[in-house]
């Protein structure tokens, strides 16, 4: 984000905050529930965007960290009666540590290798969760997790109070993510996305940067997982399925990988679509699959790319082509792809 763009973004940001606060007072309960989900998945998608959009590492296993954090917090609170804050901290720690462990295995890979290894790791984590019945409840999952007994101008047990809480936590995380993205580290990630070999020549420890990005991303995904489990009161292996990882990746792509706010827009769009469509059809997975195909075919740069295209057209420069984000490299770009 360049500086003038940031200055232009302030009124938009202000309007967003006002709108987000208005939801609490004005929206019907059903939409407040959806808004909580939108916040949770926005945070999850933005955490994945750090990898996909900024570092150019497309992961199909992100649900593993989300789910591990949710399970850990859920198990501690349900089986051991651990209060909210320590259980939440432990959940985030477990998800982040899992990221730190998996990061060792994937930080040296790029492109399709990275994608398929994260997919395999995500599936293995899911399989373990499903079969480790004595700990995770297997197919039945863990029902009956209660919302924290806190008060934030509104009791958190009520969904409106929980929404405010989620808004606060997600807001803090987004601010932190903005700092990460704007830092020299964030710029180095973009450099790695464009050309790992050049960055290596310049003396950047590419492995270390990719590893750090992976762990940071897992940390924010874990925060989203903990927010989710206390909202939902229930966690099951379905929260770890590849469908979740694929859906989050699609949120990033639909929003526009590498744009800061795009993934949040993609997440909100998909959350509302899924819940509004669920009253019409049971075939959400088909819709998701078709969306994948349509987006890749017609709008690979996502909503963010669409906005750029419209702006350019207004400015009378329709000929200019919009840069496709690094997740969809062109034929000539073999950097880090395959071999």
């Amino acid at each position: 984000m360049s500086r003038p763009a940031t200055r232009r973004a302030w009124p938009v940001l202000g309007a967003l905050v006002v709108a987000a606060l208005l939801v609490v007072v004005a929206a019907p309960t059903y939409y407040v529930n959806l808004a909580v989900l939108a916040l949770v998945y926005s945070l999850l998608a933005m955490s994945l965007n750090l990898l996909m959009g900024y570092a150019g590492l497309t992961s199909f296993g992100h649900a593993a960290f989300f789910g591990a954090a949710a399970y850990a917090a859920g198990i501690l609170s349900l089986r051991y009666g651990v209060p909210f804050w320590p259980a939440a901290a432990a959940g985030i720690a477990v998800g982040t540590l899992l990221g730190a462990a998996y990061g060792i295995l994937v930080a040296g890979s790029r492109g399709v290798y990275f994608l398929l290894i994260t997919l395999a790791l995500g599936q293995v984590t899911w399989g373990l969760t499903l079969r480790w019945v004595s700990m995770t409840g297997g197919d039945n999952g863990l029902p009956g997790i209660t919302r924290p007994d806190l008060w934030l101008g509104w009791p958190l047990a009520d969904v409106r109070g929980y929404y405010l809480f989620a808004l606060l936590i997600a807001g803090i995380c987004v601010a932190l993510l903005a700092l990460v993205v704007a830092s020299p580290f964030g710029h180095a990630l973009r450099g790695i996305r464009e050309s790992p070999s050049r960055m290596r020549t310049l003396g950047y420890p590419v492995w270390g940067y990719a590893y750090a990005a992976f762990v940071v991303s897992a940390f924010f995904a874990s925060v989203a997982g903990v927010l989710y489990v206390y909202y939902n009161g229930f966690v099951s292996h379905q929260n770890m399925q590849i469908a979740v990882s694929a859906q989050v990746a699609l949120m990033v792509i639909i929003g526009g990988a590498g744009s800061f706010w795009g993934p949040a827009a993609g997440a909100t769009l998909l959350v509302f679509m899924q819940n509004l469509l669920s009253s019409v059809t049971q075939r959400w997975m088909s819709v998701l699959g078709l969306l994948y195909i349509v987006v890749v075919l017609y709008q690979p740069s996502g909503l963010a790319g669409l906005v750029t295209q419209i702006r350019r057209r207004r400015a009378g420069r329709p000929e200019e082509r919009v840069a496709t984000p690094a997740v969809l490299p062109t034929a000539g770009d073999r950097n880090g792809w395959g071999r």
Partner: protein
Amino acid sequence: MFWITLVANGVAFGMLLFLIGSGLSLIFGVMRVVNLAHGSYYLIGAYLGTGVAAATNSFLLGIAAGVVATMLLGVVMQTAFLERFGGQILAQVLLTMGFLLLLADLSLWVWGGTPQILAIPDALSGSVRAGGFVFPRYRLFISLLSALVALALYLVLERTRLGAQVRAAVDDPEMAQGLGVNVPRLSTAMFALGAALAGLAGVLGSPILGVFPGADLEILTLALAVVIIGGLGSFPGTLVGSLFVGLADNIGKALFPELSYIAFFAPMALILAVRPRGLFGR
């Protein structure tokens, strides 16, 4: 006896995985694309084969139906969708993810959620005695048939003109194209072959594993483990990887059912940490 059965079953399962893994590996070799819908071919082949075999009372017709249908599916996917994105590897992989979700849901729609199983044909049921050992005949059949397919694949790849073209395209697609090899058509051929092999594996696997929603992902995970361990695009790697995963999965499930995924996950992680491109990867 327990161990011998376990190993025999593991080998049979491993050879079944080889049929799937080799298609995945071939497609990757020529196109650099990991086809995430590969497990879906297995699923659809299994459902169709089971249905046709039950309706016609012929195992062979079941196999034919599964193989032909998945082959057509693979060709349509490649020519109508993936080919447009020649060279844009990630776009192609994302497309296959779309097909994975779509085909899984459509299968659930068409065939419902109840697991189905194909009866073992009479000629292949029962078991074979050799010395003091007893092998289930059907698993022996799977192992032998898959070994034959492996041998045929090897001979075609190493000894024929087509095989030479494939190897050239694997080594350097652009140079091969420049030398007159029709790489897009070769890619379609590999897609058809890979899909057909996965469909075949689906029909063959149905009598011992059954078909159910989610079988596509279960198989895809194991097939990914196979190619991660063996090395993507490597023929001997796929063979070694599939036998390893087949054995580890079977033995793991028997010894510690709750944590059976660890059995192939731990070695896979170890290999990744030491050799990120797999045992035989370049």
